[in-house]
């Protein structure tokens, strides 16, 4: 995919974000300059961002398309993002070790088509090895799952 007007796209997105921030800030007490409320500072920042985004939009009218194509492997990208989503949902219910074995196994075996033996060794060794080093030795907090595994 080739992005023809990158600055128009990013300018529009940031303009919306800036205006939304300003709008949400108005729902908070603004106070006065001497005793400013929680909404005044984010209101100013939202308006500043919207102003800068407007300048980018104005400049972006003549902006050239990006030279490279991107999202060259959208299927692979979606698989990786999907695996990350699974990881977020499974990490605490299943625990670190089981989730990571499944996560690494999927990426190496399914997405990257690596041999089964290599996938199994890397997935199991890194999941159990890092858990032992970080959780047991370095006392980092990592989820253990309902079965203590």
């Amino acid at each position, binding site marked *: 995919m080739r*992005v023809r007007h*990158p600055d128009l*796209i*990013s300018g529009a997105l*940031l303009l919306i*974000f*800036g205006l939304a*921030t300003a709008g*949400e800030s108005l729902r*908070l*007490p603004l106070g006065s*300059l*001497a*005793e*400013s*409320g*929680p*909404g005044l*500072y*984010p209101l100013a*920042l*939202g308006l*500043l*961002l919207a102003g*800068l*985004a407007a*300048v*980018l939009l104005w400049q972006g009218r003549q902006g050239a398309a*990006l030279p490279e194509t*991107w*999202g060259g*492997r959208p299927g*692979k*990208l979606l698989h*990786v*993002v999907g695996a*990350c*989503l699974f*990881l*977020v949902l499974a*990490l*605490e219910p299943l625990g670190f070790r089981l989730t*990571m074995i499944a*996560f*690494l196994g999927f990426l*190496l075996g399914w997405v*990257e088509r*690596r041999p089964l033996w*290599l996938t199994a060794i*890397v997935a199991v060794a*890194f*999941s159990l090895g*890092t858990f032992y080093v*970080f959780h047991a030795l*370095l*006392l*980092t*907090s*990592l*989820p253990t799952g309902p079965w203590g595994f």
Partner: protein
Amino acid sequence: MGVLDNAWMGFAVAVTPRNLLYALAGCLIGTLVGVLPGVGPLAGISLLLPATFGMDPAAAIILLAAIYYGSQYGGSTTSILMNIPGESSSVVTCLDGYRMAQQGRAGPALGIAAFGSYIAGTLSVAGLMLFAPLLARVAVDFGPPEFFALMVLGLVLLGYMSSGSMLKTLMMAAVGLILGTVGIDPITGYLRFTYGQTVLADGIGFIPVAMGLFGVGEVLYSLGEKVLPAVQRPSLRTMLPTRQDWKDSAGPIGRASVIGFLIGILPGSAHVVSTFVSYALERRLSKHPERFGHGAIEGVAGPEAANNAATGGAMIPLLSVGIPSGPAPAVMMAALMIHGVRPGPLLMQENPRLFWGVIASMYVGNLMLLILNLPLVGLFVNLLRIPYPILYPVVLLFTVIGSYGISGNIGDVVIMFVFGVIGYLMRHLRFDAAPVVLALVLGPQLENSFRQSLLMSGGSFAIFFARPASAVLLAAGVALLALACLPPLARRIRGRLLAGGADGA
């Protein structure tokens, strides 16, 4: 106490067996994250941060600082051997380093990069030792208006020093400042922009954001990259530079040490900018500028010395003012604060052993890196042979440990992945991620200083201009903005006038 007495006290802290071990571990991890493309010092420091919770503060910072400067050593290896920069600050090294490798001179290129890094790194630590106390003495008298002005100047400098568009850098800084307002308002106690999510009540943590933007974003971006080229494996014997190599490199290393140190103090992409400035200067000073880009050893020695010197410079604002100059120093600031140590002008008085111990450990660490790096290059080259399709799932695993380990909250992992996707989009739309992280760190301090200043003045903005230090800092920021904005504006007006004249004719 004089500098020498303080240095002596620092070395007494740094050379204890435990701290030497932490410095060694940090140097090895730093070199490793520098060597591996896509895994930067930020990811390395963030990953080890939870592991330092149980440590003594000095040991924790010695370990994290060693990862930071160690990564600058490691970044050159992939640049020289594979034409792929391990770090953004090693991009320039590719130009002549890879050419030298193609000409069979990979050994001297790696050797001069290591020696240049050692010399510049050591000189910059000496500079840090001399200048950090001076700056801390000045900063002790700073009040909220001065801190506000200093941070505004820092953000403008960030835009000015950035390698990309200043407008985009300032926009990203504004986004970072907005993200910094999420959570409990420190003055009134109001919850802002949390939408009922408890994970947001304490604010958006910058470590998950940084790991998302730099770690996950880089992995997603690299999925579409080409296959990495084959790697050469030079022997230790060929790595020692010849007398002619030393003669050619001595001047560039000396100049780059000064340039890197000075640019390192400034906020922004200091390491990257210092390498470009050093390369451009050496090319201009050279009697044979045509050799640059075709395997000139000066083109390796200068930039590699500059990016290591910038590390010492970057520690000055962090340790003496409490303002980080980049994402990696920002994580170190977080580490200090987690250990109950507040970096800033009083750090030197309240925790002299930590302050001088960390600085002294940087001398020792630089020496360790020189001794370790040359013999271990073969080992690191073997790591580069690991195919990226196997490496990136493991990198993602480490980012999960880093983000979850900080708070033990799955919400931080969600934040990391969300910012990973945002980082991927930003890379494609040519936005730099560093300003977001830096502004997110500075945001709460900036807001507090701003609101406290207005409280002091009864709502008058004159307070920022009535105090000399604040006025000078703000004037410098305005001047920099004008310098950046006026030339393009003048070009546009001149173009319009010329076009109008042509139409009239």
